[in-house]
């Protein structure tokens, strides 16, 4: 199924209304997996943009396609079973999906950096930190070994690792989880990328270390003007750090807008239900939480209608018959819900 890029978003403004140049445009991206049990449409036509220097969060629960969507940008989907079957990813004037193998390798790590959830699995355990940093630098940039080492020391200092010269000779297992994630950030920043994709960068970390790492990432991306795609399931992290937010459910973006749009005017029943289901530390204790009933959908058994329909309190006949498209609710705020007008009225009435 093809979906149109919603009109009215072409003239890009950031969350504060300033004009920003587009850096990345994902359009109607579709990534499917062929499994013995059937075809899984992990990403089923998502479209969004990232402006220069902007932090865009992609939120959703496990299996909603948020990681697959981000990995597809750099074509890091194992194939088989995965395949990017449609759409385009325009970055710096070209479509990343049509580049040759050699060309996309030069984009990965050079123009777009990556940070993964578990740094122990993304760092090579048998190579020193220093070797992994200098290797990346020399792979992508025309620098001497000495200059690369100098830069590696600088980078480790920049991400707050003390005694960087000694650390260069250490192996990943010598470092704590937080320190390893700092090394990953140094690696991602090493070649002056314009964009960093961070896939659940702090999920494996403790809350005080999570705060350290996220503050560091915010500080560095702002200072160096690097855009960030932050993939997470933590709604608190998104509220603290993101400029714009895409909410995903069952392989599609169901709501998109600035962080304030999403949190103060949620216009998709899923977003609304998610926000109402979490206990908040800054509000009086509630007697009972309002959970979202039912289970996340099986992507192999999606019907023709809206995927959230079976768990939705606003579902109408139309919702079972056709999938809603992502349409504007207000300037730059999009929602894929047939009942979004009724939802807005009810929400206004309630508040």
């Amino acid at each position, binding site marked *: 199924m093809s979906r149109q890029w919603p009109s009215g978003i072409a003239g890009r403004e950031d969350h504060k209304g300033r004009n920003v140049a587009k850096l990345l445009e994902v359009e109607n991206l579709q990534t499917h997996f062929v499994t013995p049990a059937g075809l899984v449409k992990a990403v089923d036509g998502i479209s969004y943009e990232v402006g220069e220097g902007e932090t865009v969060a992609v939120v959703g629960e496990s299996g909603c396609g948020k990681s697959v969507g981000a990995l597809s940008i750099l074509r890091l989907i194992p194939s088989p079973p995965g395949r990017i079957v449609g759409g385009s990813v325009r970055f710096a004037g070209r479509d990343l999906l049509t580049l040759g193998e050699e060309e996309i390798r030069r984009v990965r790590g050079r123009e777009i950096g990556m940070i993964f959830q578990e740094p122990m699995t993304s760092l090579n355990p048998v190579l020193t930190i220093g070797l992994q940093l200098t290797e990346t630098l020399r792979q992508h940039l025309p620098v001497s070994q000495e200059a690369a080492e100098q830069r590696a020391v600088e980078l480790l200092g920049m991400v707050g690792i003390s005694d960087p010269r000694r650390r260069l000779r250490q192996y990943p297992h010598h470092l704590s989880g937080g320190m390893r994630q700092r090394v990953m950030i140094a690696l991602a920043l090493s070649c002056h990328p314009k964009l960093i994709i961070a896939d659940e960068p702090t999920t494996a970390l*403790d809350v*005080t270390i999570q*705060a350290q790492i996220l503050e560091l990432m915010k500080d560095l991306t702002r200072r160096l003007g690097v855009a960030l795609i932050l993939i997470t399931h933590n709604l608190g992290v998104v509220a603290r750090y993101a400029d714009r937010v895409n909410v995903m459910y069952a392989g599609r973006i169901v709501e998109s807008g600035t962080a304030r749009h999403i949190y103060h005017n949620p216009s998709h029943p899923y977003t609304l239900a998610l926000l109402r*289901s979490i206990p908040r*530390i800054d509000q009086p204790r509630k007697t009972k*939480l309002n959970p*979202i009933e039912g289970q996340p959908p099986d992507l192999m058994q999606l019907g023709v209608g809206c995927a959230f329909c079976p768990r939705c309190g606003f579902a109408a006949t139309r919702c079972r018959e056709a999938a809603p498209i992502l349409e504007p609710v207000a300037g730059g705020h999009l929602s894929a819900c047939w009942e979004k007008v009724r939802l807005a009225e009810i929400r206004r009435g309630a508040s």
Partner: protein
Amino acid sequence: MTAADTMTPDIPLAGTRIPQSDVLVSVRGLKKYFPVTEGALIPRTVAQVKAVDGVSFDIRRGETLGLVGESGCGKTTTGRCILQLERPTEGEILFDGFSLSNLDRKSLSSLRRRIQVIFQDPYSSLNPRMRVGEIIGEPIRVHNIEPDRRAQERRVHELLDVCGLPKKFAGRYPHEMSGGQRQRVGIARALSLRPEFIVCDEAISALDVSIQAQIINLLEDLRDEFKLTYLFIAHDLSIVRHLCHRVAVMYLGKVVELSDCDELYGNPLHPYTRALLEAVPVADPAVEERRQHRTLKGEVPSPMNPPAGCVFHPRCTLAVEGCSKALPNLREMKPGHWVACTEV
């Protein structure tokens, strides 16, 4: 310091003023050290990991006590010692007045029926080769509670129903279920022996956001229905606040603060508790913009070689010279609010 020292009258124990008849679980001067050995043939102990280092608290009947802290602070080891899955190095655990460490196998087994556990990961804590009905029914068979097979089956169906699962799930295998459904099976298994006390070890953490609230509500409903007492071990501070009556904050093997839930969150006193609460992001961008984001510097030191004096002093903003010398004891600042810090 030995357990006996901890119990001398001039160092009051947190929560000791609770009438003994109201206390279901009592942890007294608990220590658990794990030896670090070297040498393959003749291992010799070269160091000790002080996972739990002198922890005392009481849990009242019908109460949910939260045990929070970051990885490695000893909260899970404390839970495992209470469950008798670890033998404490020192100290005592009393359940309903009985000391668990002095019991013979037979009496321990009958006490064990009253103490159950719900683990974090519903993927690894259920046997993949057993059907759900067998998993839930196994404790009933082991303890020989319902000799009649029919009655066993009825009990399993009842338990499934109580935990919000349809009866037909008894015939399914764990891999056929979602994470939330598996956690419900884990809860049904814990309930199968009609326990009084359940240790919930990160029982919510592995679940998706939309499922977490379902399981929290289930745990609350069960608590009310069966008058359960929980030890709720978790790192998510907003969930602990929602579910618990009292909360103990642990850092590097020690309880640093213990208080009623609302008092602890409204008026945190220990600098570590404050830092923890400040680190929790709130799901509202407007609130986040106003908040100060001071982050705690450094990392948790190794429990093999914890700092002298107050274990938190190297990262503490309030630290003075004395903090590196003497270990602060828990002091009662307000009725029921205990803090192990000399500078608050």
